[in-house]
């Protein structure tokens, strides 16, 4: 018999979230695995939301942040899930195209 540990809360703010799946069997032996999940801004493109002035819009700082991880794939060094704007596991022209479409737009959180 497996018992899932209690989980609560649904992240709504864009960002990178780590959640842990923990299971305990009938004998009390437990195992856990961490998962990373990215909540993208709406519209997608606000890759860098820590730089002052860039927090609430898609701009040049986001372009640079995406370009810095260009060509990376999910799980590789430097992977930034916030730059994976179409959630296909690779940062490439499809993501830059989405960013270009939304360049200049304000984002909601």
């Amino acid at each position: 018999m497996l018992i899932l540990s209690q989980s609560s809360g649904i992240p709504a703010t864009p960002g990178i979230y780590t959640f842990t799946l923990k299971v305990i069997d009938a004998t009390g032996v437990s195992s856990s695995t961490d998962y990373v999940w990215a909540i993208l801004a709406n519209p997608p493109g606000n890759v860098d939301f820590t730089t002052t002035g860039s927090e609430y819009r898609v701009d040049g700082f986001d372009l640079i942040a995406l370009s810095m991880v260009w060509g990376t794939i999910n799980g590789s060094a430097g992977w930034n899930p916030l730059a994976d704007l179409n959630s296909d596991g690779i940062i490439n022209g499809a993501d830059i195209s989405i960013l270009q479409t939304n360049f200049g737009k304000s984002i909601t959180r």
Partner: protein
Amino acid sequence: MFLGRINRGILICTFVISIGVMSLSCGSESTKKEFIGAGFTPEGINCSTPSINGVYMCKNERLSTDDVIAVDVVLSSAKPVFGIAFDVLFDPEGVSLSRNEDQSIDFSSTEERVWKHTFVSLQEDSYDRVLAGASLQRGDTSLTGNIQVITLKFRLSGRDSHLTFINNNLLDETGHPIDAAQYNWYGGVLGT
């Protein structure tokens, strides 16, 4: 009779000279018109001898026309630069952004394609703020020296307008800002 011929000669000469002067006058007017119109005055920098470690604006004569003023944004940096991001504020009562037939913003990126991506847009719900960014890609060698970033194009529609950099930064390949205090950003004035 002889005097009459002289008088006629003088009259003809005067007429010919008058025509000539008028022609010259018209010629100089039409020539002058080609140079009348919009201009751009950089502030705080001489475009022919820009200082190192700065971002500045200079008029692009080749891409400017009677109606459109093209302004180059040029980066001069001793430190390696991976990307540049900035806003340009302008007076919408005085100038407007030049647009293509499809209403997209008319701008030029560098002819040499030194940057991998260059984007320009008006900020949403704003009429006086252009957002711009230029970036290399992961694995590229960062840039030093004098590098043209982008050419913005404006149409004068009224009074003169300052072009002012704001919210700007240069980033190195690690994504860290290059010491902004060591870099000056120079705008300018669009006007007649």
